[in-house]
């Protein structure tokens, strides 16, 4: 196979490369279309990814709302149980069932603190 070798001077080489560069950079119609299609595809991909992420977050949000509703219902049920347990008549009835009763007159002692020493008594001694 015959090879045509021609030695170029470095300066000439640079000139040749510079001339060739313009032809590489010039886009004809087909290349432009391909580039536009690629750009469009990338943007679509980006949008799709964002939309998907938003949809996922929206779904999670909706699930959290459902969980919140369930928890609020449970809180309501527990509050009701608490209120029923705290009802005064219920407490009085349970106390009476346990044998507790109001003090009778002869059991009452009233302590007059009006002349008492105002110095507080320590509750815990070292």
């Amino acid at each position: 196979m015959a090879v045509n070798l021609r030695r170029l001077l470095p300066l000439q080489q640079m000139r040749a490369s510079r001339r060739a560069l313009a032809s590489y950079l010039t886009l004809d119609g087909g290349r432009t279309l391909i580039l536009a299609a690629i750009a469009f595809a990338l943007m679509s991909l980006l949008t799709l990814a964002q939309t998907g992420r938003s949809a996922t977050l929206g779904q999670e949000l909706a699930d959290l709302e459902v969980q919140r509703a369930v928890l609020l219902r449970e809180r309501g049920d527990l509050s009701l149980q608490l209120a029923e347990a705290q009802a005064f008549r219920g407490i009085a009835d349970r106390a009476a069932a346990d044998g507790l009763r109001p003090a009778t007159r002869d059991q009452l002692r009233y302590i007059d603190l009006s002349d008492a020493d105002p110095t507080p008594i320590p509750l815990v001694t070292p």
Partner: protein
Amino acid sequence: MRHSRTYTYRPARAAPRRADGAVPSLHISRMRLLIVLVAVAAIMLRVGIQLVTLTGETVELNGTSVNLRQMARNEVNSRQVIEPTRGVIRDRAGNTLAMSIEAPWIVVDPTTISDARAADLARELGGVLGMPAAELEALLTDRTTRYRVVRRWVDPSTARAILESLAAGELRFSGVFVEYHQRRIYPAGPSGAALLGAVNDEGTGVAGVEAYYDDILRGRAGILTAEIDARAQPIGIGQQELRAANDGIDLELTIDPFIQSLAERELEQAIAIQSADGGVIIVLDVQSGAIRAMASLPSFDPNEYQQYPASVYNLNPATSQVYEPGSTFKAILAAIGLQTGRFSADTQVDDTGEIDRYGYRLGNWNRMANGLLTPGRMLYYSSNVAALQFAEMIGTESFYEYVDRFGFGRPTGVDISAEATGIVSSPASAGWSPIVLSTNGYGQGIAVTPLQLVRAMATIANDGVMMRPYLVERRCRGAECVSTQPRAIKQVVAPDVAQAVQRMLVESANHYAPVVWSEITGQGGDTWLVPGYEVAAKTGTSSIPNGRGGYETDGVIGSVVGFAPAKQARYAILVKIDRPRRDPWGVDTAIPVFQAIAEQLMRYEHIPPDAALAGPGQIAGELVAAHP
């Protein structure tokens, strides 16, 4: 002859083969390309026009005209009403008296349930809900509706079991739905029912505090406009417009749980012993006008108020029903007389036991004469003859002027719905005659509400200053609260007049003390009604109008109204017993109830007793020094 065609591909214009042997590029005619493009564009335009036309069309669907665009939009867009949570009602100790929770309903769509499945589903669901399978099957096979409520307010655990089964995709509850609705719950049941009232299925207060404060308790509904998915959940990336719900305001009542419980217990016992028709007890804070207890019977369970007659749950006997106050009104008469100066504490009238007026013979309860009586003795003996003479001394104009100043014949302004005004005749009223003044003097021919009477008594206890009675202590939205400030309405009588009547009422109370103490001490004379304390009270036996211009002959209303302690009073108390069966005067029933409540209140308030205020056989409570 049949012709056949052979198609062969032939380029329109053969591309000349290049000299170097390279394959020539495919050349498509510009004209052909243009034609194809125009054709595609035309087809797309036609499809687009068809779509636009179609969505704008109105079609007949199941006999109704439906706009397809609107129909499509309705499928996706949703406008959900966000129900606000109704405010909580608590007593002054923070115990919940009324609250709202989301409670489940079980609903079915019979059109999705085949006859073959209905029997199995009825058995399965009936077992869970505790309903007869036959009854349930009838509901499931009645396909006249797509929405049928099977059971309201089921147990949360039952609803959870059904929901879990549905979520797991099990078919056993297919066609069954669980819906959550707001339900008003009264954890204490009938306790305080008359003052609390109730809320109907539409969430509207129908009586009591619930009705009076309905606007602020119910809050404001929110609205969510959004695109929804197949589960009817808003789509996160869709357009949403939210107007948040505003929950109702919480109310803290002036009701004290201990005093309310005490009043209810005493009333229940008295009515049970006497087989009475009903009764009322009110405990009012004298210095502020705050209502600490309001008990009444017959009562109802506000959780199931529909099961009671409307007259029971709609009317609070303490504020909506009137009665003739009887002799309890004599305390008001004494205050009016002293205030107007028409008589003094030393003025005497002759009690002859009976007296003729305007063609009628009026008399004392026992027709017995008591001789010359001062206003104090008039109260002590509860003399009708003396009272009517004192009323006549006051005169028509002054008497009714002060009856009005004491608040009779007009609402007190308490924050409970359907408050009655009472009935006060005056010379301007149709059918009035001078005998009305005479009988009004001892509390007949005039109708008051229990709250009006106890407020009038509290005015005397409060040295003549009338306070507005109120039931709501604080209104709270979250942690932000607004407190109700006690409001003095007016000085009805001078302080010295009020104090004079206070002293008279202590003697009156002690006169009736033997009703409670005679069996304990073995002595029938006057003694201290509540040992260790000066307590003021006036009893009353009221005849009941029969609606034909006369009075019933087989029933009375026994009542006591007073306050404790007599000086610097803390509480005004009214006890009213309707038609006691074993006590012809009602007083023997009402006095022990009043005494028990007054004694418990003094202990509850840690007011030390005065050992000097104890009669023979009475124990006042021992006072010991802090440092002996």
